[in-house]
């Protein structure tokens, strides 16, 4: 379902819970003039605050067992006991970390070396508000939620792919609004399917309108140029055949919105439209109550959909990076309603051919009370921007970290993806909120 602005404004957890589907956020396409090979980046945002401790679980930690009598992943045999998880190799701090029982496809990706896991990471700002946390993360400025551009927009602008003049289809969102990460993008568009990008017209007069528009927009103002590029994009998308065979999801992948969004992205990649950046929202993670009924389904859908999507794109692995993240993790101690409340440290998954997978990354702070954030939540030991900066640098070949994440002054990669480091440029550039784009004529 669409995550409308109205629901955002409600600010209550039911709105987030209602987001059980998932949606395509935004897609951004390459500037064909840009020949530097960059990865296609797909961000899957788990809206609502995913319980990282029940997803990638420190099963052998006694504090964990104590705080979670019911809502924890156990260390038994996952083949016979559905409350036990899949043991991961190369864990942090010699702890028996395990994927949730329903996340077996992720174990397979992990073992094949394509999936890396960063734990105890997230936002350095301590907010427990969904909206503030998402805002800070997506704007890429943890101290300022009034920044008028999203981090992905600034990435695109800084590599010259978001200048209002891209040929091909710039950016897309399945819902009515583009996500905050693409806020301020000139090129962010929305679509449920690639074929949606067309002139809606009368069956008999649509092609006449389109042909006439081509004549009307033959001129050399910015407006004329925009019209012609749009017509070209329509033609390109309409003329390319849909990929065959189509992706086939297994029955465990039940979240239709997530499936459809990832299918659209996969199609656009295979149609060779020069996709650069795509974001997908998958909601339903605000599990304040009845977590045992909701969470396993969520995880199962995520794991199977992601694996199917990834395998479908096997020919593109060398230039595909998928990041799964959420606005925060959840409270260590489960609550009285069979759920967990808003917490802090979370987990990020990084998937792709250039990922040094099969390993966990980060610093495990432990779950003893003294180590917890505010005494109650998993601490954040890795800033989410550290992970994204490394991907920007090594996979997206963009060293302008200061533009993408204004205020950062260090580059400390975890070494979780392959690639070359350039000299980081911490110049803040246009990170501010003044929005007076230039008119090119």
């Amino acid at each position, binding site marked *: 379902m669409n995550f409308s602005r109205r629901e955002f404004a409600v600010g209550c957890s039911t709105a987030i819970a209602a987001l059980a589907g998932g949606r395509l956020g935004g897609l951004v396409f390459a500037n064909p003039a840009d020949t530097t090979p960059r990865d296609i980046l797909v961000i899957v945002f788990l809206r609502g605050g995913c319980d990282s401790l029940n997803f990638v679980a420190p099963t052998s930690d006694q504090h964990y067992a104590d705080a979670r009598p019911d809502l924890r992943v156990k260390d038994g045999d996952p083949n016979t006991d559905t409350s036990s998880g899949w043991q991961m190799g190369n864990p942090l701090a010699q702890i028996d970390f395990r994927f949730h029982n329903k996340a077996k496809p992720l174990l397979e990706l992990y073992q094949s070396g394509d999936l890396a896991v960063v734990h105890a990471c997230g936002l350095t700002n301590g907010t427990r508000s969904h909206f503030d946390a998402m805002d800070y993360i997506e704007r890429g400025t943890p101290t300022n939620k009034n920044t008028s551009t999203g981090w992905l927009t600034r990435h695109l602008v800084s590599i010259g792919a978001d200048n209002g003049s891209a040929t091909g289809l710039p950016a897309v969102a399945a819902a009515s609004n583009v996500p905050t990460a693409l806020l301020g993008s000139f090129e962010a568009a929305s679509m449920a399917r690639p074929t949606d990008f067309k002139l809606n017209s009368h069956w008999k007069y649509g092609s006449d*309108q389109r042909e006439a528009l081509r004549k009307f927009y033959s001129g050399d103002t910015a407006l004329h140029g925009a019209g012609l590029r749009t017509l070209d994009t329509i033609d390109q998308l309409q003329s390319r055949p849909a990929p065959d065979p189509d992706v086939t999801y297994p029955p465990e992948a039940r979240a239709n919105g997530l499936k459809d969004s990832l299918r659209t992205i996969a199609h656009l990649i295979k149609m060779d439209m020069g996709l650069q950046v795509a974001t997908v929202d998958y909601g339903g993670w605000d599990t304040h109550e009845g977590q045992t009924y909701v969470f396993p389904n969520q995880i199962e859908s995520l794991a199977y959909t992601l694996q199917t999507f990834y395998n479908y794109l096997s020919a593109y692995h060398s230039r595909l990076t998928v990041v799964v993240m959420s606005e925060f993790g959840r409270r260590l101690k489960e609550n009285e309603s069979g759920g967990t409340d808003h917490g802090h440290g979370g987990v990020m998954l990084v998937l792709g051919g250039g990922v040094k997978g099969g390993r966990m990354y980060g610093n495990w702070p432990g779950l003893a009370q003294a180590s917890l954030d505010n005494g109650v939540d998993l601490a954040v030991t890795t800033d989410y921007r550290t992970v994204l900066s490394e991907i920007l640098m090594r996979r997206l070949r963009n060293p302008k970290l200061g533009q993408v994440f204004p205020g950062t002054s260090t580059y400390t990669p975890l070494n979780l993806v392959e690639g070359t480091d350039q000299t980081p440029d911490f110049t803040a550039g246009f990170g501010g909120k003044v929005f007076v784009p230039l*008119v090119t004529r």
Partner: protein
Amino acid sequence: MPVSRRRFLKASGAVSAATATVTLAQTQGALAADPAFTAQQIAELAPAAAPDLPQIAIVALNRMGYGPRPGDIATFNALGSTPSARLTAYVNQQLSPVDSQDSTCNTKLQNVKLRISYTKNGSPFTEDRTLTSLNKTLAQLWALRSDPAYEERVRPVYEVRLATWLRAVYSKWQLREVMVEFWHNHFNVNAFADQKISATWPLYDKLMRQHWGGNFRTLLEGVAQSIAMQFYLDNASNKTGGPNENYARELFELHTLGSENYFNALYDNWRDVPGATAGQPIGYIDEDVYEAARAFTGWTIADGSWNGSANFPNTGQFTLYANWHDRFQKRVLATELQHDQTPLQDGQKVLNLLAYHPGTARHLCTKLCQRLVADVPPQALIDRAVQAWTANQTKPDQIKQTLKVILLSPEFAESWGQKVKRPFELFAAFLRATQVDFPPGGLFVDDNLSGTVERTGYRLFSWPTPIGHPDTATPWLSSNVMLLRWNILNDMLGRNFWRIPDANPAPFNLRGQIPVSATTSRQIVDFWVNRLLGRTLASNLMSELYDFMSQGSGPDVPPIGDTADLTDRINYLVTLICMTPDFQWR
């Protein structure tokens, strides 16, 4: 030799890539500093291919309003014998709106209904309700917050939205509507950011309507004390000991001086800001923001919350709460604020310093010229506007006096194609030019109109950040927005867009508006082109339209097809004309 803007930007290293988001002032500064270009070249900076200048009526009706309704051009032209006499008369009229003369709009506002549906006491509840919240008192609106239905709590925003559309489409006082939109964007608040804001939204709208042409200093204080701004930028919880600088920051950066007057990167001591030691710093630095935040401690809204010793009354009234006020001395813009002033004295002092600052005059006048004339407005015009703004800064009609200078300038009359209609303007212009019964049958089943337009990025009263909608063309010209500019016009032709049952008449009866004397394809096209654009197009483009209309039967005979087919074709002819660049400029 005139240099194209694109070449300028390419050549100017200071503006890396024509893609960067930079301020106008930064751009100008960068260009001026670039030895590759002379002052004369900068002065000659002009669009490479501006469309031809249309008659003054088209310029005025599109830039001081949301485009002509049928008959507007003739009415305008009857105002005087020369273009300048007509413009002068029209500007004078528009600067003195008389509500009682706006009967069509008033009737619409009174009678239009907007459906509300929700579950009430366990059963479905639906009502086709008039816009009852627009004139409610603070007490009545404040009470809405405790309504159990979310739909009732946010209803006022939806009502103001529809009233805004109706006024744009029907009000005779178009300049006022354009200026109300301007001020809403200048003092942007996301109406959905907090339900205290949603419930009382008509009051914030009224503030803009009351002061659209009035005094800036008065408007600034009205905004500072409004429920909407107090909660949107958190000043309601700004108290000594832990001041919240959110409001103060935007007050400097957006509402008054603008970021072009922010010198923090250059100066780390207030004395270093040029002019500071003489008490007239040319700009501000972070310390000014921090100190101003302290000055506004204790400016809050009585919302029933705990204030440290008791609960505030739960009235929604603006309140000065001395216990939260930082009593010590402050320094803002190189001016000392004495210790132990009241919260009102401190806050008003800051507002005075900002409202009367020359940097504010320039920031505001640049934005006004950008709204009314061109994305990159001529410097000479800005200079004259600044003079009027400053000379009238304590007058009750300061803004109108400034508008008069801008609107009666040669730069206003002689520029065209330097602005592209934003989506709201485009669709309002379409509804005006086509004379559609808006909303069809007098009922909005829902606010699909605003909801659909939101997909273009134009979010009426819900732009998420304090800066408001961009007022230059580029963000509104991405392929996605271009496609929506076209598609929404076609979509509006259908019943589905307006949620009208299939049995009802179609929302648009465009064929019925063609005079009986227009029978051939050429005559039909000529009629619509003139109606929608107020002028004709190049002959090759007219031929395209004749071909569209005649479908191969030749322009000088009646178009082929039965009535249903002709109805469709004329509808899509009209949307096609509105899709052309000529309808999209302003």
